[in-house]
């Protein structure tokens, strides 16, 4: 009986030791979050940089977990015998940290400076910095829109409605997008915004002001489908409007200082 007890205790100890030895320790570099497609931020920057270091990832290191990153990660998982799910869990993180390097200061410095750069292993870092790339908002958008669209609409929203409530700023962005879809207006964001006499901010030069984060967030919501105007294609400030014609448009609702019309 005593022998059986010793055997059982030994068995339990063996199991505990084995589980402790094989337990996946969190990698030292990434945060503890599991990353997957759609993710964004510093962990994604590190993932892309590490994958590029070992030549699995060849696109821009931008902190956006899109399809390029997804396929690169799957290829990495396949090569190293990991479960192929395109997600960055602890096991994949650990293997990635083991087989790659991440020059964090270098990568973040280039991103902050707005430089175009790469992070391949075996090439001197200073040789991987290229010219400055055009500054954009670096946000994740629905596939049908570009960062250029977001930046341009944000300029218009900030110039036209920076004193308005958040809803009013989303509304101005939605009007621009509604116009792009409407047959009476041009078919691109740029042409809609710069259409002669369409927006006061273009006429008086306020379009050139640098938009704040709130204006960009408002545009992001509009690009994602929010339309507080309920399909308006015009708006005006009743206190300052000089055109009689605008009063003839069917009105929908008032948000802040603006009346929105169809």
């Amino acid at each position, binding site marked *: 009986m005593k022998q059986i007890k010793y055997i059982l205790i030994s068995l339990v100890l063996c199991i505990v030791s084995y589980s402790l030895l094989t337990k996946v320790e969190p990698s030292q570099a990434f945060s503890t979050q599991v990353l997957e497609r759609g993710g964004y931020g510093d962990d994604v920057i590190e993932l892309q940089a590490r994958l590029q270091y070992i030549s699995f990832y060849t696109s821009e290191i931008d902190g956006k977990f899109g399809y*390029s990153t997804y396929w690169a990660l799957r290829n990495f998982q396949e090569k190293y015998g990991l479960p192929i799910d395109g997600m960055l869990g602890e096991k994949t993180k650990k293997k990635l940290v083991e087989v790659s390097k991440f020059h964090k200061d270098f990568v973040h410095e280039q991103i902050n400076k707005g430089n175009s750069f790469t992070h391949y292993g075996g090439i001197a870092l200073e040789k991987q910095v290229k010219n400055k790339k055009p500054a954009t908002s670096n946000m994740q958008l629905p596939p049908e829109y570009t960062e250029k669209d977001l930046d341009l609409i944000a300029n218009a929203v900030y110039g036209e409605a920076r004193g308005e409530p958040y809803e009013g700023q989303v509304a101005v962005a939605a009007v621009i997008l509604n116009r792009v*879809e409407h047959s009476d207006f041009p078919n691109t964001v740029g042409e809609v915004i710069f259409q002669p006499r369409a927006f006061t901010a273009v006429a008086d030069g306020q379009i050139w002001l640098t938009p704040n984060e709130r204006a960009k967030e408002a545009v992001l919501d509009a690009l994602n489908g929010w339309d507080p105007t309920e399909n308006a294609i015009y708006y005006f400030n009743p206190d300052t409007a000089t055109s009689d014609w605008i009063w003839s448009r069917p009105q929908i609702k008032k948000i802040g200082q603006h009346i929105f019309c169809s």
Partner: protein
Amino acid sequence: MKKFAWIITAVAVIFIVYHFSVQEKNTRLENALAVQYSNQLTSSSEKLVKLSEAIDQTLIFTDKTALEQPLDDVWRLSSDIRASISALPLEEGTSTQWMNYLNRIGNGASQVRNGKVPLEDWQKSMTTARSNLITLSNEWAFNTKDQGKKDYLVRTFVNRKVNDKNDKSWKTLGDSVKAYTESDFPMTASETDQQKKKDLEHIRDSEVSENQIKERFIKFFPALKDATLHITESSKDAPYPFYHVEFHKGIRIGYADFTKRGGHLLSYLLERPFEETTISVERMKEKAKGYLKAFNYADTTIVDYRENNIAWHIANARVDNENDALVYADGIQLKIAKDNGELLGLNAMEYIQEENIPTQAVVPVDYHELFTSDFVVEEEKLAYVENDQLQQRLAFEVLTRNDSIGTYKIYIDTETHEILQSEKLP
């Protein structure tokens, strides 16, 4: 002496008035010029992106019918951009090179379509052309860096972009497609609209009162039950009547719109300050599913999600109960806070009226016949998307990729095998 002093003063005043008047006039002219150039540059930049996307699509397919639309788009857009470029004050050499380059691209597409140029030759030369177009597009994109000085574009345009000491040798780029002849093309319309909002005028549900809307708001958003509410009705000319609920509770400010007929939630949006913490993707998905259930959108599923600085934007679509196909036109968008998973926004405008979907035959597609060998088909599922006649068609939603061109979602009609839509994924 006194007279003389008066004369001097009068002259000085006239001079100052004249000076400011000229200065104001110059500012106005400068502004007008900046706007005009910006318009042309931005327009060209946007169209260059569209053109490179259309070129990408000509690299995906081998099937002649599937190639028709993208080749037509290349032809159309290249002539459109030529018109935009011709309006810019470019240095003559640069302008001519680019005009010729675009002309050859457009003409090449036309010749491929007519069978005069082998598709393989076109695809070979276009692999580099697409990246050239994106480079130029980035250079011409609207930009207000340099502290938002409005003359930034004009100044840099004149000083840097117009001269022929550009980093890229456009002549070399042009040579890559020089085999094609030149000809002029008429200007045509731009891209077709893909997003169609539903007509909410035809809701036939009974009208709900302001009090009922207040109750519904509190039921939907219990955390805001003691918020200050301000409810107004839409203007009498609004295409469909709705209630506009503005709310305010502590740091939370926002709105919710409900249809007057039936009291359906159209959209909801909340603004508040944010913490730096971030919930996990799994938690975000749980939250999203919880919200969809709570709002009784049980027949929807998450189809895409994107993280940004403060929130996740989640796209959802209805799942057809006959064949499990996704009905994108019956979509719902959610906005969930990254710091604690709070619902920041909900947009159900498109979901309220369910699409009428007819039955449709499903004939399998041979993807080897359709796609070039460089493209790998990764996933296939069923989805309903609009065709050119704005009818909902059942389609194979195919996820295909090429490591150098990118990942594409292609929608192929299950019955006719027509390419209904193709979308480059980020």
